[in-house]
């Protein structure tokens, strides 16, 4: 059992924040998908930064369930540190992790600090962590110390809301929830600048590319229909959650005819197992991309499956985003996955201490028994320094 190092209280849950880890494989047979974080790359990076040596080893092995973190969708939460100290770090989206410092003996009230993604931030009792609206992604991971200690249910802490179990009472976070956090790294760390794994981006027109390999019902579709799946620019509709993303043609002109199998009766197949990333074509011919909390089986044909290397990218897609599919061979998909995994493990090898400019290391002062009037005076001096800097916004 992990030792509790800190307790947080949820002041504002954000839009749809849930506890997630690497999920619970082995239960698809009883109708429970592996689930877990939509963006496993972000989860592994963020938990390795905040969790210390054990979490880093878990991130390298990627063996489920690993430490649990908060998965944020669109709009982040506000969390107050009730007791203990911990490191927090954000990954997966362009957003800042803010902390509003509590009033202490050192008079830090009103201080605030912020950290960019992949950079740890040390927080203490009374501090309030907050993440605002996400940019560049629908999903981000907020890692907290050595992991969120909601109970292990069916082998994992991941929230499976459709089944009503995992995480906090099988549901999204609510205001007032208390989260126990395992002891993690004892100081703030970060991934060294420039050492983060390369991040896929949309092209100049804002269109994402997702690699596809064949699915179990590929042969039910004529080659020309499969080519059309890849030639069409698709848009993500508002029907987008942890179960799946519904797509529609993005074309401004006349919408292309819906995709259909060779034999029209094949729109209903005998239900079979559906992997994460499966491209399902229902009767209306508009693809649904199945995500972590999908049904374990499906009765619509699956002509293709998103390559494993691009599954974390699905977490970033939000309504209105446009995308195109690119069919690749199994060998090409595997080579790309190996390259991405090498880059991720390389980043995990570049975890270094993170300085916190503008913030006195209070813990070090406490431990050195230097909490005196001198220390308080230093803090004030430091603040005057900061005030004298020209505001950054005045430039250019």
């Amino acid at each position: 059992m992990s030792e509790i190092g800190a307790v947080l209280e949820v002041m504002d849950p954000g839009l749809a924040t849930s506890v997630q880890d690497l999920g619970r494989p082995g239960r698809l047979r009883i109708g429970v998908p592996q689930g877990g974080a939509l963006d496993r790359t972000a989860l592994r990076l963020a938990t390795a930064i905040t969790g210390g040596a054990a979490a880093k080893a878990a991130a390298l092995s990627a063996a489920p369930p690993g430490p649990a973190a908060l998965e944020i969708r669109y709009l982040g939460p506000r969390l107050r540190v009730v007791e203990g100290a911990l490191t927090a770090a954000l990954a997966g989206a362009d957003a800042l992790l803010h902390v509003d410092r509590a009033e202490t003996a050192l008079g830090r009230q009103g201080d605030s600090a912020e950290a960019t993604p992949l950079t740890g931030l040390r927080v203490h009792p009374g501090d309030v962590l907050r993440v605002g609206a996400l940019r560049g992604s629908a999903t981000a991971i907020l890692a907290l110390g050595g992991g969120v200690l909601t109970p292990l249910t069916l082998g994992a802490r991941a929230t499976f809301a459709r089944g009503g179990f995992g995480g906090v009472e099988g549901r999204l976070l609510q205001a007032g929830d208390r989260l126990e956090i395992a002891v993690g790294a004892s100081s703030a760390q970060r991934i060294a600048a420039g050492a983060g794994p390369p991040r896929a981006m949309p092209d100049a027109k804002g269109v994402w590319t997702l690699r596809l390999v064949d699915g179990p019902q590929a042969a039910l579709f004529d080659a020309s229909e499969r080519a059309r799946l890849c030639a069409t620019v698709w848009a993500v509709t508002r029907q987008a959650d942890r179960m799946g993303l519904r797509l529609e043609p993005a074309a401004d002109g006349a919408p292309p005819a819906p995709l259909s199998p060779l034999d029209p009766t094949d729109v209903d197949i005998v239900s079979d197992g559906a992997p994460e990333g499966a491209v399902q074509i229902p009767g209306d011919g508009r693809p649904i991309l199945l995500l972590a909390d999908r049904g374990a089986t499906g009765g619509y044909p699956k002509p293709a499956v998103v390559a494993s290397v691009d599954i974390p990218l699905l977490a970033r897609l939000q309504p209105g985003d446009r995308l195109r599919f690119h069919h690749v061979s199994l060998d090409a998909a595997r080579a790309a996955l190996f390259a991405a995994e090498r880059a991720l493990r390389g980043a995990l090898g570049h975890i270094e201490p993170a300085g916190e400019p503008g913030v006195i290391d209070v813990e070090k002062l406490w431990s050195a028994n230097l909490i005196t009037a001198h220390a308080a005076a230093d803090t004030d001096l430091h603040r005057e320094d900061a005030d004298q800097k020209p505001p950054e916004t005045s430039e250019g």
Partner: protein
Amino acid sequence: MDQTPPYEGAPDASLSQEPVYLPCGDAAVTVQFASWRDPAANVAVTALDDALAWDPVPGFLEAAPSFRSLLVRYDPLETDAATVVEALEDLRLGALETALAPTPPRLWRLPVAYGGAEGADLPEVAAETGLTEREVVARHRGAPHRVAMLGFLPGAPYLEGLDAALDLPRRATPRQATPAGSVAIAAGLTVIYPVESPGGWRLLGRTPARLFEVDAAPPALLAPGDLVRFEPASADEVASLVERAARGEWRPPLETALEASRQ
């Protein structure tokens, strides 16, 4: 990859018939034993699934048995599709031999309150099949049903063995909420809803059996290959059993099919 097979398998595969190995992304393969739903194929799926559980292939993550195919997920950093397919084919040939002496399936006796508020669609099913309500119940409780797979919700079984006279399509308009424990039919199958959920199946009755409990071992009451016999009970009996089951004081009776045949 060179193992991509032709899509169409033999029309009625059985244990001894060769499956087709279908690509299913770069982290899974689908082993398909028949081109349509087929009890013999389902037996073959269960046999291969059992063999895989005893002797997992390297890099194996999990398997999901369904009516006529087995989804096998693997870690693509550990192994590849061609290696997995080869290992599965070895396992299948091994399973062929052990299947000559199958273990008797488990037989569950599930009480069901048919009709009334518990089975709101019984009158409609009777009207559409031209049977009386009593005849519909008699045909549904008749022969044992076989669990072909678990699927749409945790612990939710799809049962084969529905009397051909009761083969109706799903409701034109699905219900927003179908109560937990609902026993429902459509598409030649019976399903049981483990929790309240939307659904388009036709409700015949309600069972007090709890199909999925995260703290139980195993969490799913039923497993593929199990037999289920539905036994009519009154609404009051079922209501009382629902309460006892919630307190952990009642579970549906279980026996092997062999024991049942001796009675």
